[in-house]
């Protein structure tokens, strides 16, 4: 029996080898390397979609999510209720919804920053119970540390996980180049334009090579032209990283251009009221938005937003 066959046999056996069974993450990674279809990503954790389990890591699942907030005067505001969403590894899903549909709450739950009151979040089969390295989050505002240079901001996540100085320097150089900020690496954020700051934030979000990148209206503070260019750049970045992307936006145009699918949320309490495939392949040029299919899709999304909204 070869090493691989031996490993597979052990994993597939219902009793399993205790030594392997107690290392779910390492095993999951091995399984993906082996490309075993139809095997749960983590042994011992039941999944309902084993047969179609993707080979690429970064599958994010949200099931039956409910989350509410204290609205004062003893009232609870239910932001999300009964929200189901599954995003395949390497897929880009746009989330769109009216104001107050809980889009930001959804991202925070997915990032492990907020605990859902009901339901669960799974990343490649394992439950997400708090922030983790495999999930990167880019906020609506850049949130750079004002006393640090761009390079030190980009390297901040690496510093927190205790990466060595050389490791950090190399990775930062790579990331800064990736987002085109080489010239501004040693500058503090206050001297940068809004667009450059958001680039730095994006680079920081990618620093730990997350399998899933959560983007909370990341370009909404930029002007329309810059925004269009950033969306195209985001897709160019994705083509190199192939990370799973959850892209929250309130622009129908942006949602279609960026996503493989557009998921429409209802008015509060938010849940999924539409899940529409975008009929364009990749790489995608901005001109696809002029095609009739784009207009038709935008019309359907608008209809859902208006029907589902108040």
């Amino acid at each position, binding site marked *: 029996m070869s090493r691989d066959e031996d490993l597979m046999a052990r994993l597939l056996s219902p009793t399993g080898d205790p030594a392997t069974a107690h290392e779910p993450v390492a095993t999951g990674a091995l399984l993906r390397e082996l490309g075993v279809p139809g095997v749960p990503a983590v042994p011992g954790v039941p999944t309902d979609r084993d047969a179609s389990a993707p080979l690429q890591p970064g599958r994010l699942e949200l099931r039956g999510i409910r989350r509410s907030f204290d609205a004062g005067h003893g009232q609870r505001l239910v932001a999300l209720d009964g929200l189901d969403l599954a995003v395949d590894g390497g897929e880009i899903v746009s989330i769109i919804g009216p104001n107050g549909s809980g889009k930001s709450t959804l991202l925070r739950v997915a*990032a*492990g*920053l907020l605990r859902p009151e009901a339901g669960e979040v799974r990343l490649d089969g394992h439950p997400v119970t*708090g*922030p*983790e*390295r495999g999930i990167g*989050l880019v*906020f609506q*505002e850049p*949130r750079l*540390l*004002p*006393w640090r240079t761009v390079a030190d901001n980009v390297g*901040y*996540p690496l*510093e*927190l*996980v205790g990466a060595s100085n050389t490791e950090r320097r190399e990775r930062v150089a790579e990331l800064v180049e990736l987002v085109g900020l080489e010239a501004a690496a040693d500058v*503090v954020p*206050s001297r940068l334009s809004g667009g450059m700051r958001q680039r730095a934030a994006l680079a920081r979000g990618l620093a730990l090579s997350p399998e899933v990148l959560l983007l909370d209206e990341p370009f909404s503070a930029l002007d329309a032209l810059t925004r269009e260019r950033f969306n195209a750049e985001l897709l160019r970045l994705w083509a190199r990283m192939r990370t799973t992307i959850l892209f929250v936006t309130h622009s129908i145009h942006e949602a279609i251009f960026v996503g493989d699918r557009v998921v429409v949320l209802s008015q509060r309490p938010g849940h999924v009221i539409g899940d529409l495939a975008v009929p364009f392949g990749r790489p995608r040029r901005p001109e696809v938005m002029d095609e009739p299919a784009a207009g038709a899709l935008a019309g359907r999304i608008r209809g859902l937003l208006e029907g589902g909204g108040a």
Partner: protein
Amino acid sequence: MTAAIARGRGWGAIGPILLALVGFFAVWKLVVVLGGYPVFILPPPETVLARFVTGWTNGILLRHTVATLVEIALGFAIGASTAILVGYLLARSRLAERVLSPYIVAAQATPILALAPVLVLWFGPGLGARVVICALIVFFPIAVATMVGIRAVDDRLLELARSLRATRRQVLTTLEIPAALPSIFGGLRVGVTLAVVGAIVAEWAGADQGLGVLVNLARGSLFDIPLLFATLLTIALIGVALYVAVLLVEHRLVGIR
């Protein structure tokens, strides 16, 4: 003016400062001459400066200055470090704030002049009491500044740190301290000048050395009014020098943002 010194702008910035200094002495001289005041009320500046020089060369000012500086250094170090710790605690713990703040405010509201004799009674007439008095007067502004600075740390940055799984210690060292540093230094600037006040007050309440003692001696048994003014000048210079020192450290640590 101190900001200009800290930034090291050269003569363009130092020139006006020197001019103002000369102006100050000129007005002083003018008041003495026009008012016709005797030396024991207001000695002319040249007399005071001459006494200042002899005071330093014969060692009397040096000896008392060293005593006062020791009290200031110890009192400020102890007061400032406890103030920063307590300020952080007040900012991050509602319970600590509720329980501690009444006492802190009450201690601050009680004049240090009234408190000093009690502290000398408790800690004896030695260095201990003077350091405690100095630490006490320094404590309040620094504790409040730290509390305000830590409370003002952007929640969104704290959320960012949380999303990156920063430990409590990492949040403190990489986020809270750097973010609160300008505010803490605001407190340290006020504190360091109060440290001088604290040391002098403490010396009045009981000491055999120090500039506060020398003020009393010069006015009382020595009846050397130029020495009294030379001592006041020394105290003022210590205050300015310490303030500038804090400012220089601040510029070094906080830098440009």
